[in-house]
């Protein structure tokens, strides 16, 4: 099993450009998440999904859009990149169990630089 796979791993954008980060998981998890990690700020939740076809806002959603058309994929889009979006982005997934809070499985991260 590959677990959670993120592509691309590195990307450099110019201000105003758009791009999409792809996250794929092969664990049949219901829940998926996008976090960003910045020095001194820790991991902050951008958007998340509790199932195929559903998305919801997290703590810092502005400037991002997401889609979950297939259960195994969760896409994060930047329509008009800004330097403030320079960060490391992590995708995560977890299973759904009402009796037991699940751990999050993280990808290796995507490092985005916006010039």
């Amino acid at each position, binding site marked *: 099993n590959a677990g*959670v796979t993120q592509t691309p791993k590195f990307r450099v954008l110019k201000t105003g450009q758009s791009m999409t980060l792809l996250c794929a998981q092969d664990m049949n998890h219901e*829940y998926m*998440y996008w*976090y960003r990690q910045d020095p*001194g*700020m*820790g*991991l902050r*939740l951008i958007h*998340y999904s*509790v199932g195929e076809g559903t998305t*919801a806002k*997290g*703590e810092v959603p502005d400037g991002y859009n997401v889609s979950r058309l297939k259960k195994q994929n969760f896409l994060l889009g930047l329509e008009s990149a800004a330097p403030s979006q320079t960060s490391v982005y*992590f995708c*995560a997934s*977890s299973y*759904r169990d009402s009796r037991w*809070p*699940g*751990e*999050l*499985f*993280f*990808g*290796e*991260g995507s490092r985005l630089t916006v010039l």
Partner: protein
Amino acid sequence: SQKIEQNSEALNIQEGKTATLTCNYTNYSPAYLQWYRQDPGRGPVFLLLIRENEKEKRKERLKVTFDTTLKQSLFHITASQPADSATYLCALPVTGGGNKLTFGTGTQLKVEL
């Protein structure tokens, strides 16, 4: 608002000693708390989960305590090794379903020979 605090200063200890990391939180009454390990350039990896009704949880050389009165969790690594050097994150659930977590900024641990 909910807040998680971890010591931002790196913790340097000698091999073989016990490392103790602290996670404090305010404005929370979490049902559980999780600890993750993160190596440079990698994603966080889950280590342990402790529920509010559990005082202590152990896994091999790891031990976590959870004091809901003090609003604090302590993370211990006994007989530490250089391979334990990493950043350790604590995480608490966010209300609203979806198994969402909010993370502390992490404490970097360095185990020296």
